[in-house]
């Protein structure tokens, strides 16, 4: 008892007593756990990367560059150099097969053995080195055809440029004012496009009308199946006529702008590829170019084969690093949202069952038992099949099935808490059931719920990965860690990096999550409190 009235919280020895809440205490203990702290940092880095992916200086995750398929990860070489090496080793291998590139018998044996074992990469690497050596020595020479191929490739690497049109403007010749074409009226846009092509406006109108009708009827076909062509056409017409003039204009505008952009791109590319400009421009650049007298555009351009792929590329020539980063977005989101939804459902149902008991408890728990009895994967697969394969449905399917464990756990926790005296105290004060559950019972089970959720996230990611691996998860062009691994399995021996990087990224995250969960459990566990 503190009889003396003091503003400060001091004890009888005049020592100031510091406040200390349970969560503060847990946080202090968590900070002492090195593994958990490292895990927190790792998880934070992952989250940061996933969230900031759109503004990171990385290539787009769905940009396909056909020439860049299956490029090796490299920190020093550009994609052009890698392509060159690849072509060379290709040609050397051919030459070796044609016995033009001669090696010793012993070497031959080794190479044949590699071929038999399917270790093609070793053969390529070896022959590349050997061929280059022999070429330098002069004991091997290219054939004329091969020389041509290489020359072509060299030229291509030197000249291929990739450009992006960011904005297009039209300059009004009388006032000299520049207008962004996205802000122009439909009629002016059509006129501008016609001018660019050098055709009258009528065929353009015909074209976009046709295209819009097509796309609308495709939309309808995706929504309703099993109708005759006439019915589809009728519905499309109906929908178009229902559309307000503004909405229709929007469709036209999108159509025409895309066309203008692609035309401008063509024209700019033509311009840049001309000998004069090839000599004078330095890449990469980001500047405004005038396309015609009246039209100008802000253009970003870079040498196509100057791109660097630090983690290599996949089978369609997409940057693996950017796919992994965007993949973590999907994977982590599934982990978090899935856990959140299942915890929400589980806590509500579990606490109701635990607190009210009796028939409610019996009913909820039998539902849980039955759902436990059903094969979990099968349910997810069926749900995916019924509702369609997209990410949202995947969240949904996972969440409705995975609340079972948490609801059982919360129920047990609540049942052990509900006979505590502080609950009786609340009841004797006339507290309502909702108040008792959400003000008293749930906050006291929170530590268990937090620990469980943390440990639950990895299992969600694993499930999603498994589904994606089977091809039931996220669909291209989106990626997740699981789908990346699944895609990579096909070329595992030839292109091991495609498997290795997503797998290691995923493993590190799962490890971190598990260590964090363990750390949280230790932090919340009063047994490890180390106090009297």
């Amino acid at each position, binding site marked *: 008892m*503190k009889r003396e009235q003091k503003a400060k919280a001091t004890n009888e020895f005049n020592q100031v*007593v510091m406040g*200390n809440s349970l969560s503060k205490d847990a946080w202090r203990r968590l900070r002492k756990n090195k593994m958990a702290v490292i895990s927190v940092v790792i998880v934070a880095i992952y989250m940061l990367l996933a969230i900031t992916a759109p503004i990171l200086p990385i290539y787009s995750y769905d940009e396909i560059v056909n020439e860049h398929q299956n490029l090796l990860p490299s920190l020093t070489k550009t994609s052009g150099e890698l392509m060159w090496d690849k072509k060379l080793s290709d040609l050397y291998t051919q030459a070796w097969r044609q016995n033009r590139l001669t090696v010793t018998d012993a070497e031959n044996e080794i190479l044949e053995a590699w071929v038999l074992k399917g270790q093609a990469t070793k053969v390529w690497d070896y022959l590349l080195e050997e061929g280059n050596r022999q070429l330098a020595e002069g004991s091997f020479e290219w054939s004329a055809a091969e020389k041509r191929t290489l020359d072509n490739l060299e030229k291509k690497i030197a000249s291929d440029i990739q450009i992006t049109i960011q904005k297009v403007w039209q300059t009004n010749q009388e006032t000299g004012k520049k207008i962004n074409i996205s802000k122009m009226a439909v009629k002016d846009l059509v006129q501008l496009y016609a001018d660019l092509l050098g055709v009258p406006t009528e065929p353009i109108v015909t074209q976009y009308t046709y295209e819009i009708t097509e796309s609308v009827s495709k939309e309808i076909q995706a929504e309703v199946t099993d109708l005759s062509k006439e019915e589809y056409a009728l519905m499309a017409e109906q929908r178009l006529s229902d559309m307000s003039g503004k909405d229709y204009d929007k469709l036209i505008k999108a159509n025409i702008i895309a066309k203008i952009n692609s035309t401008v791109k063509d024209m700019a590319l033509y311009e840049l590829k001309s000998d004069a400009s090839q000599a004078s421009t330095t890449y990469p650049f980001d500047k405004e170019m005038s396309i015609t007298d009246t039209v100008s555009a802000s253009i970003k351009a870079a040498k196509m084969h100057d791109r660097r792929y630090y983690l290599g590329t996949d089978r369609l020539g997409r940057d693996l690093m950017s796919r992994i980063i965007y993949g973590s977005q999907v994977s982590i989101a599934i982990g978090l949202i899935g856990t959140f939804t299942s915890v929400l459902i589980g806590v509500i149902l579990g606490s109701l069952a635990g607190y009210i008991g009796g028939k409610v408890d019996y009913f909820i728990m039998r539902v849980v038992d039955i759902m436990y009895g059903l094969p979990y994967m099968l349910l997810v697969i069926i749900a995916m099949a019924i509702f369609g394969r997209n990410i949202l449905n995947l969240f949904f399917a996972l969440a409705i099935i995975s609340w079972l464990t948490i609801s059982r756990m919360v129920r047990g926790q609540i049942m052990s808490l509900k006979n505590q005296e502080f609950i*009786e105290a609340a009841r*004797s004060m*006339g507290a309502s059931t909702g108040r008792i559950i959400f003000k008293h019972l749930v906050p006291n089970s929170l530590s268990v719920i937090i620990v469980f959720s943390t440990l639950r996230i990895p299992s969600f990611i694993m499930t999603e990965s498994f589904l994606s691996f089977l091809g039931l998860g996220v669909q291209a062009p989106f990626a997740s860690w699981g789908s990346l691994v699944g895609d990579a399995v096909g070329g595992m021996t030839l292109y091991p990096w495609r498997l290795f990087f997503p797998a290691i990224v995923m493993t590190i995250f799962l490890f971190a999550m598990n260590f964090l969960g363990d750390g949280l459990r230790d932090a919340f566990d009063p047994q490890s409190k180390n106090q009297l």
Partner: protein
Amino acid sequence: MAEATTTRQPLLTVTDLKQHFPIESGFILKRQIGAVRAVDGISFSVYPGETLGIVGESGCGKSTTIRSIAQLYKPTAGKVMFNGLDLVNASKDELLKARKDIQLIFQDPYASLNPRMTVRQIISEPLTIYSNRKMLQPEMTKEEIETRIEELMERVGLNKAFKNRYPHEFSGGQRQRIGIARALALNPKIILADEPVSALDVSIQSQILNLLNDLQKDLGLTYLFIAHDLAVIEYISTRVAVMYLGIIVELSESRDLYHNPLHPYTKALLSAAPIPDPAIERKRKRIILTGDVPSPIKEHKGCYFYERCPMRMEHCATNIPPLHQVSEGHEVACWLYE
């Protein structure tokens, strides 16, 4: 005092209260195969301003009695009349109104406070609940509630500076004070105290007993006080009821009980209670009861104390002794005094 109590209206009257907990078996269709007879028919009255103590060993049903009166359990049978309202059959609203006047203090100062709430939240909880239901008279604003919390903390001897602390930062005695402040928040008429001092240290126990006494004097409270410690009960109570196996075996003025115990069980209890004085303690002759308390599942045909009674008679085995008055304000359930 006895004359005074008889003329006054009782505040709380318990009539033939029974609380049985069914033992069920069976998979889907539950079948009752027996019952734990925690409280097996007790009757008593509590008068305004007095303290009725209930004493007994663990498992005798004294805590259950309090919880049945507070309607934390639905009683199996019997009536609990409070201020003219039968709590057992009261509607939800009537019960809520009555609850304002009936508050509990619990035994375990560690378990009776929500560890996730601050002292402020704990003490204000009854006020918040009733103000949310618009049943607070007069209505209180947030500031008024805040002042009330500080007032209550001072009243029970807690430093206001610790208002935003959590219960685990307090010692046992301080927590019990928090519990008392919470019980006082709504200005109740009666406080049901379930062994409020038995988990406390000796020096703290006397502080809390003094505090409860002061509060009774200042606020005109009525207590129904439970304890297993005879000395504590004797000190705090005006009248004492001795419980054994779910029934009351003796009910009397507290002084009278110590000087003139009638029931053999009361006698054994009194002689077993150690007295902190070696001079007396060494000279005392104890009545040592043989055996343990029988299981409360058993249905009794005779006296509930028959198995352990040192004075048992043949008659006791088959006839249940009723509680009857032996002298003014002294009732006993034993065939010896028939």
